[in-house]
């Protein structure tokens, strides 16, 4: 027998079924839309963006590494010859990069060096083993020009000293690096009693107060120690001291008691050095006549300070061409 109560129950079944159906349909729509969004999102980011970023970073790093090696490769080349050498080697490097990228990324890349748009600095080199002396005392590697009306200290990009420990005196030789505000770093270098190399560095402010002092004992390899005075380390990294970066450039560099120190050295600074009184006035080792200059004589040669290059990447989804300047020694002048 159907009563009002049972009729109401039957209508509730219908209403409940409709409500349940709406919930099922709604949940399925939401769940599917979530899944679709999750699947689609990552595909928006193209891996080629990462590859372009990698190429941008590596092309700068590669240019710097290659040019610095070519700068220090020969002693007697002219600026034009050096430029031609860099162009030729950059072409080889660019071709290797292009082959590598084409084989795995299906992309074309190239790097072109522009010698005319690049900035040159100068390299002062004594490539033979000898004292750090000259007829002038003290010897200025980078003259201050103070009082001459042409005060032009230089930004220092490279200062490497290859010390012959056995022939270096146990008395201290001094190298003083000073900036225009009067801050200075004094390096005192001598052989120790156990045939190692002592490098003591003192940083002084413009009032002459010592703000930092380090003493490093460097182990020689084949009786030589290679010092990087810009970074303040030996190349074997067994001794650390204050680098010239401890004070801000531009700098002047002076050697005192250079008869006590034996070795080879190489500096690279921006622009050319004017001939000053009390300056060693090195010969130009660039060009064919430079080959006749004895290796123990300091001489100057061109070096690329800032290289201008064009880097291009061409792929199915991304293409760009960047023209940029690469600071070879990481110093902006």
């Amino acid at each position, binding site marked *: 027998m159907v009563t009002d109560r049972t009729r109401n129950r039957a209508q509730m079944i219908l209403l409940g*079924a409709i409500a349940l159906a709406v919930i*099922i349909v709604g949940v399925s729509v939401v769940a599917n839309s979530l899944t679709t969004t999750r699947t689609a999102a990552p595909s928006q980011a193209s*891996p080629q963006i990462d590859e372009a970023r990698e190429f941008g970073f590596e092309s700068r790093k590669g240019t710097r590494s290659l040019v610095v090696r070519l700068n220090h490769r020969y002693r007697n080349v002219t600026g034009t010859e050096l430029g031609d050498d860099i162009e030729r080697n950059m072409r*080889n490097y660019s071709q290797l990069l292009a082959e*590598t990228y084409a084989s795995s990324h299906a992309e074309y890349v190239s790097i072109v060096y522009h010698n005319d748009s690049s900035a040159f600095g100068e390299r002062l080199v004594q490539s033979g083993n000898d004292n750090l002396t000259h007829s002038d005392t003290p010897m200025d590697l980078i003259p201050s020009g103070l009082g001459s009306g042409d005060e032009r200290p230089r930004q220092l990009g490279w200062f490497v000293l290859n010390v012959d420990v056995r022939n270096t005196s146990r008395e201290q030789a001094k190298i003083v690096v000073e900036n225009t505000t009067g801050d200075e770093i004094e390096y005192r270098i001598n052989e120790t009693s156990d045939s190692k190399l002592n490098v003591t560095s003192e940083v002084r402010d413009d009032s002459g107060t010592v703000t930092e002092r380090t003493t490093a004992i460097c182990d020689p390899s084949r009786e030589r120690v290679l010092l990087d005075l810009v970074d303040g380390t030996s190349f074997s990294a067994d001794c650390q001291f204050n680098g010239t970066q401890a004070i801000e450039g531009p700098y002047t560099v002076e050697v005192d008691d250079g008869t006590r120190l034996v070795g080879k050295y190489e500096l690279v600074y921006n622009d050319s050095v004017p001939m000053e009184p009390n300056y060693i006035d090195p010969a130009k080792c660039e060009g064919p006549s430079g080959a006749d200059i004895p290796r123990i004589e300091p001489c100057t040669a061109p070096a690329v300070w800032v290289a201008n290059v064009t880097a291009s990447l061409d792929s199915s989804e991304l293409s760009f061409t960047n023209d940029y300047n690469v600071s070879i020694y990481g110093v902006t002048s």
Partner: protein
Amino acid sequence: MRESTRGQAFTLEGLVSALVLLGALLFAVQSVVVMPGSGGDLDSSTRADLRQQATDILLTTARAEDNDLSTLVRNWSQARQTFSGAVNRNIGYGPRTPPGAFGVMLNQTFDQRGYLYNVHIAFRPRNLSEGTRRVPMVNRGSPSEQAVTASYTVTLYDNQTLTARNASQNVELWQYDTNATNNVDGFYPIPNAVDGPVYNVVEVRVVVW
């Protein structure tokens, strides 16, 4: 008569309810998205994530102060004629973890989450017609069809040296021989590809599956 009509109405209501529910269920079942990973394969989202993670590991290592990619590529043992600390030349480090932060990152990112990976060095031979060659750094088997690859380009220079602990720091890359059986000059499988200071441009490839 009235009760009979009501009975038919209840039956109809019940039928309609059942149809509504069946329709909703049918709609829900038909509209379920079948993901590519439902059969155990990697779905496209996971693959994109793995590729990004492998790329990030390579980028981080390439820019590291110590044990960067160039250092790892030159970490070659003359005594064992494989990478320093590796199992052998065929599988490289194989089940072992490569040295430095590179190995730690690969281990934490892939090993510990149940993924497999290979790492190999692709390089250009002196003669381009020979095609690209490769040296396995980590070989853990054949990648599946869903494997993803990330790579990073590294430039080697003539005056660089091998970085293995016992390698001579006085022998530069260009002085090594690529012939494994000639031990006079030492052996390094990657050749000097071009004249000039650049030695070769190699690619470190990480394959994950």
